[in-house]
């Protein structure tokens, strides 16, 4: 397989005909797009259009059935460890341990990521959880859990943010915190791909919109977002790919 390193190394994401199936169902049917460094793109589409699967493929949680992609020049399959080093996935489920405290959860992540424990404490402060840092996570509200997951992401400081419906359950302040984290990442030369339903929250940071439909890229649009591509059924994309 030929890989053009010089080109794709500059790109945060270079996806070429990514496809993934589960059993007999093809959830992604050949997705190709690029995302440059310093760029944030929003990913929209109906339920089942393949948004979450695309993100999970890009962060190496699931392998593509066919096709390939690279993250900052590292191949998804062959250099998965480099991809995991570069990409930070923000899942819709918090993925924390109920019987550990907030601080223990973030410190555990810091150890696994080889970051100093002090980073864990400062990130808890940044997401506004330091007053409950020593409380067990069981019983946290869903908004607090989201903030905890955000603290873990801040500890990691990934170059590529892969955010799956990150705004769910966050209050106005939480949304601002998240957008701030995205801006900082972009400022460092990183990039972000954000799956959203609530387009308004992502408006301040997202520079480009990608619409998925039945596992394919249906439209790519510059801001302001093309609402037709987001809205339900009627297939009338204002900006078609081809």
């Amino acid at each position, binding site marked *: 397989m030929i890989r053009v390193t010089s080109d794709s190394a500059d790109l945060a994401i270079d996806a070429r005909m990514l496809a993934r199936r589960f059993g007999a169902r093809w959830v992604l049917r050949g997705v190709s797009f690029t995302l440059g460094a310093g760029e944030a793109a929003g990913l929209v589409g109906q339920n089942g259009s393949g948004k979450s699967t695309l993100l999970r493929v890009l962060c*190496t*949680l*699931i392998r593509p059935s066919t096709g390939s992609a690279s993250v900052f020049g590292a191949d998804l399959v062959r250099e998965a460890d480099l991809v995991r080093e570069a990409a930070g*996935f923000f899942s819709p*489920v*918090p*993925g*924390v341990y109920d019987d550990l405290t907030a601080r223990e959860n973030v410190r555990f992540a810091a150890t*696994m990521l080889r970051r100093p424990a002090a980073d864990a404490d400062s990130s808890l402060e940044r997401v506004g959880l330091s007053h409950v840092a020593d409380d*067990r996570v069981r019983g946290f509200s869903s908004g607090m859990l989201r903030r905890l997951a955000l603290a873990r992401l801040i500890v990691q400081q990934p170059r590529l943010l892969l955010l799956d419906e990150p705004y769910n359950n966050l209050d106005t302040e939480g949304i601002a915190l998240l957008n701030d984290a995205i801006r900082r990442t972009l400022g460092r030369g990183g990039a972000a791909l954000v799956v959203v339903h609530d387009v308004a929250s992502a408006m301040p940071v997202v520079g480009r919109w990608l619409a998925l439909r039945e596992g394919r890229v249906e439209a790519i649009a510059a801001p302001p977002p093309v609402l037709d591509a987001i809205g339900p059924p009627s297939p009338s994309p204002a900006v078609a790919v081809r």
Partner: protein
Amino acid sequence: MAFRDDWMRARAVAWKDLTAERRSKAGFNSVAALGITILVLFGFALGPDAEAIRAAAPGALWLAALFAGVLAFNRSYQVELEGGALDALLLFPGSRRSLFAGKLLANFVFVLLLVAIVVAASLVLFHVAVPPTWPAMLLVIFLGAVGLTTLGTFYAAMASRSRAREVLLPLLLFPMLVPVLLAAMEATKALLAGDVMRDARAWISLLVAYDAIFLSATFLAFDAVIEA
């Protein structure tokens, strides 16, 4: 360097599992209670004859430890699957072997405690006297627990993420564990009978061999199993 990183991660995973287990308590307590319940049921099956019960004690205690332990292995991944924590765990860069080592360590401590409780219970229930060769008995418990835990942790990584995990794990695991169980039971039997380390020695070396073979095999194969 790489080894130190792996060891740090493995320790973190084991610490995390054990802390959560210690705080919730419900998990260990109910598994230990199940172990004792199984012993009592064996007691009923073997009849009220004290001599028959004493003779069957080594078999009963290892089977009780096995049946209760299987629940622990599935639980250990269940905790990861429930809150989507396994995803987060798999996304940490670095070797996956450290994850296996951490889980293995935590499960080992869990099973070791479980076996200790079951042995203590069977001393009482089955009228077994503490043998004079008790240091060798501790060695058998240690090696037996390593054997159960190694393949248990490995197969649970697959079974817990498949359909029908409740039946698949014992189906895969029990036949594979036949040598450990036989060796642990027979060594225990020999030691309890006041054996002068003649039969027991052969069984202990079998335990050592089994543990060595499958510890290396699982570490080599774990990368292939946790992915995809």
